[in-house]
């Protein structure tokens, strides 16, 4: 098995899984089956009417995604929150490392990533908007040099999520509808799709729940509040009806003489967004009865509602709340900010980082090359790393002083933890049995190679015995016997093989 995650391995494993029957194979000849399915064009139409005026269309529909992608235009602070989260990712930068320090590979990988959709910053901004604002997620095409499987990746390109249709077929997961109308069926190894919280439901074909989905009701509420206040201030909409007793309409008009828009309708006056109906009956003193058409509820605190909404935005996107709602000044404010920063480092938008790193490292770049978000220049990261190393060294010294570990074992442990270089070791005396998701097995024993399987045109399939299969122990014994026979043959033919190798190479 190679160090790069092989789509062929995944497909081979899927053939052993019950999920192989969760989808029909997608073919270029039948795109209509993709578009007419549960997540096709027809599914979104009854959504709004069925679920209410302000509800989203059902999940897994393009109509829903179209609406969600427009939410930055609904409410200013939501738009700012999206801008803030995306710009933070751009500013984070990236770095490329190669285990063999191959400058050529690092340079090629850097060029590939920098050229993402023409420019890394532009590509990532477009992709991340789809990640945050569509349930379909961010889709990136890996354009290859040729149609041969495993051929070199020529470039990475952003695909508009609203033009991508998931097929449900894991080997050909996406159909892309290009601007001038061509449909393109994409192989799994030619596309990266990063979705926020992909649904476990088979029917939803990988649609997830993006930040905009999570924040939808808050966006609507805050947008309504802003619209209400705007209309109240500018008088552009009728917000209440005031019935005034004891004042004639002539008196009312004279009193409310205004150079702004005034419509003189029979019996009532429209003034700065309120309808005023003067009653003919003359009362002793004028009275007013107000019929509100739109107003905030009693006890509504706009500032508190806004603060709550910003917190919800931060949680929906997965950012530190204090970036939107500063904590009140007080003791230990700096420390609490640091703690919150450290806490958020393992969640929220960090999941996007991890997804992007894994997709590029394990399915796009060569085996020894790794992609990291961030440039590792943050002094706080460096300090935290140094603090951790110091703590580890102190702990190990304690064990050595107590006689539980030898100095050589302490050295081994420090190398295993990455605190010291391998060059200090004569030989690794501790087993390293784990690997992080972003690491690759670079050193160590060569992986067992797949044996040569040259299919013979008239090879007969192995004859299956009728009835029950032999017990597992008998199969293992037979395999061992076959292996022993092969080994015996190799020993027996070794000298002759050497002779053939000599002849084939023309040696002496």
């Amino acid at each position, binding site marked *: 098995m*190679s160090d790069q995650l092989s789509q062929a391995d995944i497909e081979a494993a899927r053939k052993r899984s019950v999920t192989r029957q969760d989808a029909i194979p997608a073919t270029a000849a039948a795109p209509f089956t993709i578009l007419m399915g549960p997540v096709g064009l027809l599914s979104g139409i009854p959504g709004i009417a069925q679920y209410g005026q302000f509800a989203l269309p059902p999940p897994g529909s393009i109509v829903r995604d179209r609406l969600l992608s427009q939410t930055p235009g609904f409410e200013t602070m939501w738009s700012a929150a999206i801008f803030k989260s995306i710009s933070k990712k751009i500013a984070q930068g990236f770095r490329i490392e190669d285990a063999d320090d191959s400058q050529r590979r690092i340079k090629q990988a850097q060029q590939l990533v920098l050229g993402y959709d023409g420019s890394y910053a532009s590509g990532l901004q477009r992709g991340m908007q789809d990640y945050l604002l569509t349930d379909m997620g961010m889709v990136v095409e890996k354009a290859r040099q040729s149609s041969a499987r495993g*051929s070199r990746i020529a470039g990475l390109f952003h695909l508009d999520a609203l033009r991508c249709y998931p097929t449900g077929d894991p080997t050909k997961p996406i159909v892309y509808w290009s601007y001038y109308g061509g449909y393109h069926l994409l192989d799994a190894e030619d596309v990266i799709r990063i979705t926020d919280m992909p649904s476990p439901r088979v029917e939803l074909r990988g649609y997830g729940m993006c930040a905009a989905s999570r924040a939808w009701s808050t966006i609507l509420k805050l947008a309504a509040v802003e619209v209400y206040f705007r209309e109240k201030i500018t008088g552009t909409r009728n917000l209440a009806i005031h019935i005034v007793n004891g004042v004639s309409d002539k008196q009312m008009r004279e009193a409310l003489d205004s150079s702004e828009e005034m419509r003189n309708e029979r019996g009532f006056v429209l003034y700065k967004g309120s309808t005023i109906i003067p009653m003919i009956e003359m009362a002793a003193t004028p009275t007013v009865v107000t019929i509100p058409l739109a107003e905030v509820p009693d006890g509504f605190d706009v500032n508190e509602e806004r603060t709550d909404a910003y917190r919800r935005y931060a949680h929906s996107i997965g950012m530190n709340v204090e970036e939107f709602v500063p904590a009140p000044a007080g003791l230990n404010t700096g420390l609490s900010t640091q703690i919150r920063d450290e806490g958020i480092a393992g969640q929220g938008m960090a999941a996007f980082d991890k997804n992007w790193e894994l997709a590029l490292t394990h399915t796009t770049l060569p085996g020894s090359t790794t992609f990291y978000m961030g440039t590792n220049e943050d002094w706080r990261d460096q300090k935290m790393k140094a603090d951790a190393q110091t703590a580890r060294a102190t702990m190990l010294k304690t064990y050595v002083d107590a006689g539980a570990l030898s100095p050589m074992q302490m050295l081994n442990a420090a190398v295993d933890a990455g605190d010291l270089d391998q060059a200090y070791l004569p030989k690794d005396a501790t087993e390293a049995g784990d690997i992080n998701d972003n690491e690759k097995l670079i050193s160590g024993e060569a992986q067992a190679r797949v044996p040569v399987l040259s299919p013979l045109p008239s090879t007969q399939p192995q004859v299956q015995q009728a009835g029950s299969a032999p017990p597992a122990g008998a199969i293992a014994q037979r395999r061992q016997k076959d292996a022993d026979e092969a080994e015996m043959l190799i020993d027996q033919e070794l000298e002759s*093989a050497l002779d053939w190798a000599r002849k084939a190479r023309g040696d002496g």
Partner: protein
Amino acid sequence: MADTPLNLHALALDAIQQIDFSAPGWSKQMEAIIARAHTAAAMAATADRLGLPVDTGLFKGLSRAERNEIKALVQAQLDYLKGFVKAAPGMSEAQMKARAALYAAATRGTYWKQRYTGLPFYPTEGSECMANCKCSWQQQGDDYYWTLHAAEHCPTCLSRESGNPYQVKT
């Protein structure tokens, strides 16, 4: 060096063609030839990769890793041979000779797999031409080129050639 896999193929084919398929014991002779041919292919490829003659002390005794690799390759071919043996009673001698000859071509796959590790595919595997594949890998620096030789080529081999160059996954 470019002729090594062809020479190995020729040596194995020559040995196979001398088997009397009408006599009992032909399968044992096939087993021996398979073991010899694939071991030779592995050794020759390793020597080519290291740029050393086969007669250095390198191959006096196989290391455990080398032995295990060759054993896996030989085992796979012996498994195919079992199928051949089962089907043999229903075949004519000419058919048996033709089928046996295909085992010689399999050495080319072994050679290239040992010669350049970490490439996405190898001659005689995954293509329509199968054991008849005449393609090879050529190395230029860090780049590897799928090379078509004088023969009629299947679509997969042509497609592989158009994807040049490739890089080794280490």
